[in-house]
């Protein structure tokens, strides 16, 4: 019997998020290699880019549509997904390891007694479920793990798997929800003024104790703005009250793997390194040439960041003007 895999898509502001396309690509690979049947489900009101799911190799798309479902409701979304899984005898479920995926996956896993593998950085399908590798201790070690009992649910870390274009025809089936349980619901989303979140950014520029105070972070903001990157902070900068905890990178903050990570005035504690050392390229700017951050940096500058950062902004501006 052909086994079935369900991708649970994440939408925000009526658009499917990029991290969901990464998950679609993984599912499409399983469809080709392991002969599983793949369906993607999206819950929401209007979703403007839903057909783009078929650009990543998935043809069957279900849109459970209702104005009352535009914003996430854990109770309503959970029941719709459980209902679909039970009716269609789904064996495997894939989601993103985002605030959305992390919230709904354990609920579904507990209700169905599916083995949950969270924050996977590699994943394969076996006859008995999923087999994966996942970072533990914020990446200080990697755990090999598998599901028991034929069924599995996995959440995928962002920015690890490529969203590979593989166009197929889109077959979108719009359905009305059978029930809408809004006993636990989001009534509003407050956005932090247009900034890119560190967990989804491809370029991050971070500041630590060496920034000397909140008034100096404009130097970092300038670089972030010109690179289209996100602003991060070390625990020292957050605990001093200079930056919001949502920007904290490290073991008690966020773990990130951007293409480029620029650490400014960050010494590089064990906890901070755990949160960012899997970044593809790391730049360290720190006066102290013995700072541990240099042990993981591809490129280091041992100068005064108050002199270095304005020059960096200018040099990148020049580069952008040339190309």
């Amino acid at each position, binding site marked *: 019997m052909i086994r079935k895999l369900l991708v649970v898509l994440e939408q925000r502001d009526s658009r499917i998020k990029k991290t969901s396309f990464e998950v679609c690509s993984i599912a499409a690979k399983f469809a080709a290699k392991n002969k599983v049947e793949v369906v993607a489900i999206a819950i929401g009101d209007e979703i403007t880019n839903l057909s783009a799911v078929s650009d990543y190799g998935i043809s069957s798309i279900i849109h459970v549509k209702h104005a009352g479902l535009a914003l996430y409701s854990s109770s309503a979304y959970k029941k719709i997904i459980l209902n679909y899984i039970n009716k269609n005898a789904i064996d495997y479920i894939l989601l993103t390891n985002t*605030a959305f995926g*992390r*919230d709904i996956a*354990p*609920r579904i*896993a*507990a*209700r169905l*007694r599916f*083995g*949950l593998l*969270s*924050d996977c950085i590699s994943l394969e399908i076996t006859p008995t479920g999923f087999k994966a590798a996942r*970072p533990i*201790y*914020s990446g*200080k*070690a*990697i*755990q090999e*793990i*598998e599901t*028991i009992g034929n069924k599995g649910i996995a959440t995928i870390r962002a920015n690890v798997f490529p969203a590979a274009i593989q166009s197929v025809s889109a077959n979108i089936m719009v359905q009305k929800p059978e029930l809408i349980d809004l006993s*636990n*619901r*989001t009534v*509003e*989303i*407050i956005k*932090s003024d247009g*900034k890119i*979140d560190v967990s*989804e950014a491809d370029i991050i520029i971070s500041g630590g104790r060496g920034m000397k105070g909140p008034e100096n972070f404009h130097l970092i903001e300038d670089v972030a703005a010109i690179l289209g990157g996100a602003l991060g902070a070390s625990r020292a900068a957050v605990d001093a009250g200079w930056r*919001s*905890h*949502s920007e904290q990178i490290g*073991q*008690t*903050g966020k773990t990130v793997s951007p*293409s*480029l990570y620029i650490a400014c005035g960050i010494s590089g*504690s064990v*906890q901070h390194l755990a949160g960012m050392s899997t970044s593809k*390229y*790391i*730049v360290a700017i720190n006066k102290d*040439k013995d700072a541990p951050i*240099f*042990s*993981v*940096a*591809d*490129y280091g*500058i*041992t*100068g005064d960041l108050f*002199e*270095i950062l304005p020059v*960096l902004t200018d*040099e990148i501006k020049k580069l952008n003007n040339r190309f």
Partner: protein
Amino acid sequence: MNIAVCVNHVPDTASKIKLDSSNTSIDYTGVSWILNPFDEFAIEEALRFKDNSSGTVVYILSAGKDEAKETIRRALSMGADEGILIKNDLALDSLSISELLAMQIKELNCEVVFCGKQSVDYDNTSIGLMIAEIIDYNAISDCVTLSIEGSTVKAEREIEGGREIIETSLPLVVTAQKGLNVPRYASLKGIIAAKKKNIKEVTLTSSTSTVKYNSLSIPNAKNPGRVLGSDSGAVRELVRLLREEAKVL
């Protein structure tokens, strides 16, 4: 009202992690242990409740080895009322641990449950949410603000690039994110009182695991790269390398 706070005993975040010779478990020699940092926010939130409404009893629950009593005691010294250790020496999956905690929460008739949003050892972010499903409570994860009036709950949870404002009702499980509050320090009086408190031990059995742990590995350390200098020439070289060698600009 009865409140449960689930806590976990974890290696200090400053620890370096080594493996034992079998590569299936961690060598904890020389590691110091702490209360999971996110659990401090969970305890503080429960204690604020207790400060504001008489008749509130705060239970500290942990599933783990005898050593976890240290962490339970730490929570008691902050001002919690009673500690319960669910004895477990096995490497159980999140669902099994959640079942054990859920059984005890039911037994104690707790209407509100606080957990840290994740445990900094295995980095699963699932226990609180799984407990909620097992006992059929509402749940808010990654919570950064919380207000409970009567049975009406208003909260904010952190999401990428913002916050969701959530409305729900009791009974409730909350998983605490940094920013929910500023945890108090244990007072000397609290520490002395906690020493005298008895930590109850219970033995419970969960159903079979849904996940199997295989091997562990330590990622290869990154080789240090080049120090380019300390002046504006170094910055020009950096920008050139980022464009031509790393190809990230």
